[in-house]
């Protein structure tokens, strides 16, 4: 009754269990198909990380455009308001199926997923960056300018690091949303977590077991990402907080301490002068 599946449609490896039971809950399925779940998770993270990097960059450009002069600020505002309102599902179908009809160019599911997420989330990141940049006191850039720094340098070395620190909790939140949004890319055949789950389910009929597993994977991802972003926040906090953050910044601390020591030793020579 069940034809042996063509392993290639599952992306990686083959489904290992074909036990059919509607009554019992076959939790063993999860372990048997751990490879598939693992690679589905990896693919979801890959798509979302590439999209995160692209949408942070594009979002920053949009934020600057939004804070800029007349025609530019209008286009940036229009982009932000349009793309904030489009659901991921609509976006990815539009990119994957719509654009290929329009242009004749076919994106791979991976590319389509990255583009779809970038289109949407750059609009969110633009607003996050804009509010963070506007939260900085004007004295910060004035101090940089008064020191003779050029405007681009003031932006990259003074404003952007501080704005990033302010924006980081929101960026982390958004990124968890991005990872979850990769689940809709099952419709274009991207073999991410939900696609893997559906594939296994279609021959084993264990939706409770399998989708519980999928949910647990997403929850674990959210926990892990939250931990990573919290650590980043601690690294950027001043003074640095937490063991991991202190370890990461320990080289800077050591450098400064040795510098203090070397200059203290040299002190008697020049202190006579003062």
């Amino acid at each position, binding site marked *: 009754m069940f034809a042996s599946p063509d392993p290639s449609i599952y992306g990686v490896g083959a489904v290992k269990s074909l036990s059919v039971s509607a009554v019992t809950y076959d939790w063993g399925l999860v372990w048997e198909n751990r490879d598939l779940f693992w690679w589905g998770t990896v693919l979801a993270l890959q798509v979302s990380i590439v999209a995160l990097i692209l949408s942070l960059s594009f979002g920053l450009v949009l934020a600057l455009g939004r804070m800029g002069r007349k025609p530019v600020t209008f286009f940036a505002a229009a982009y932000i308001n349009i793309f904030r309102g489009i659901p991921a599902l609509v976006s990815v179908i539009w990119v994957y199926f719509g654009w290929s009809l329009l242009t004749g160019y076919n994106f791979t599911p991976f590319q389509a997923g990255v583009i779809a997420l970038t289109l949407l989330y750059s609009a969110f990141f633009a607003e996050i960056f804009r509010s963070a940049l506007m939260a900085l006191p004007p004295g910060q850039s004035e101090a940089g300018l008064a*020191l003779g720094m050029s405007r681009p340098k003031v932006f990259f070395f003074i404003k952007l690091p501080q704005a990033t620190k302010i924006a980081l909790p929101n960026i982390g939140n958004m990124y968890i949303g991005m990872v979850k949004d990769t689940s809709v890319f099952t419709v274009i055949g991207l073999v991410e977590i939900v696609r893997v789950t559906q594939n296994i389910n279609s021959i084993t009929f264990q939706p409770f077991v399998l989708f519980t597993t999928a949910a647990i994977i997403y929850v674990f991802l959210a926990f892990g990402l939250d931990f990573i972003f919290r650590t980043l926040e601690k690294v950027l906090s001043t003074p640095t907080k937490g063991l991991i953050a202190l370890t990461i910044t320990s080289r800077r601390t050591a450098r400064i301490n040795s510098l203090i020591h070397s200059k203290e030793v040299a002190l008697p020579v020049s202190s006579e002068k003062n």
Partner: protein
Amino acid sequence: MVELHGVRKTFGTNEVLHGIDLTVSRGEHVVLFGPSGSGKSTVLRSINLLEVPTSGSVKFKGVEYGPGIEGTPKPQRGSALDLRRSIGMVFQQFNLFPHLTALHNIVLPLRSVRKLSRKDAEEKAAESLRDVGLLKWAGSFPAQMSGGQQQRVAIARALSLDPEVMLFDEPTSALDPELVGEVLAVMRRLAVGGMTMVVVTHELGFAREVGDHNVFMEEGLVVETGGKSFFDECSHPRTRAFMGSVL
């Protein structure tokens, strides 16, 4: 060294400077004082073009940086970037960069403006901190320091770039009374060392002590100026009234 002529500044429809003339010679200590809103900070900020005058001449070492005087031919202008590289400024709110340690607050401009290597910049920054007595605080962040310490770092930061003129915009106004002294001590040492300084301050005691050229301003105009003995000899009724209420 610094020459302002007919400097006017308008914010919206409100003219806050009605034509200011000010000359600062090398090694001179100019003190600007007067009530809030008199335009003294705006004058100071015009010198390094943090405020670009609506009209008027801002000359530094003979080079025009301002928009020029109306009716005269457009002058050859220097860039604000070049001007600011010769002029240091200290702010009322310190404006240290909170994401950087005291040391790296000084390293950043040394590297990006003076193009020093990381090692040279760190050495020089540490020496600047040592000069204001804060070497031990090199690894601290601004949030971990007192206001007086922060302001001394800000002074060290400006001085590390070897400016020819130092501008001080109410450097002690945001400090606890107890902490004013340590900042004034650093400024006093700088003045004795021959630095050209323009200081906006309410510390008239300090002004009396170091001010070679004292300027009393009110409502966007210079009311009265004088030399060392200005505080005893000023004659304008507004100046005397202001002194009486402050001292």
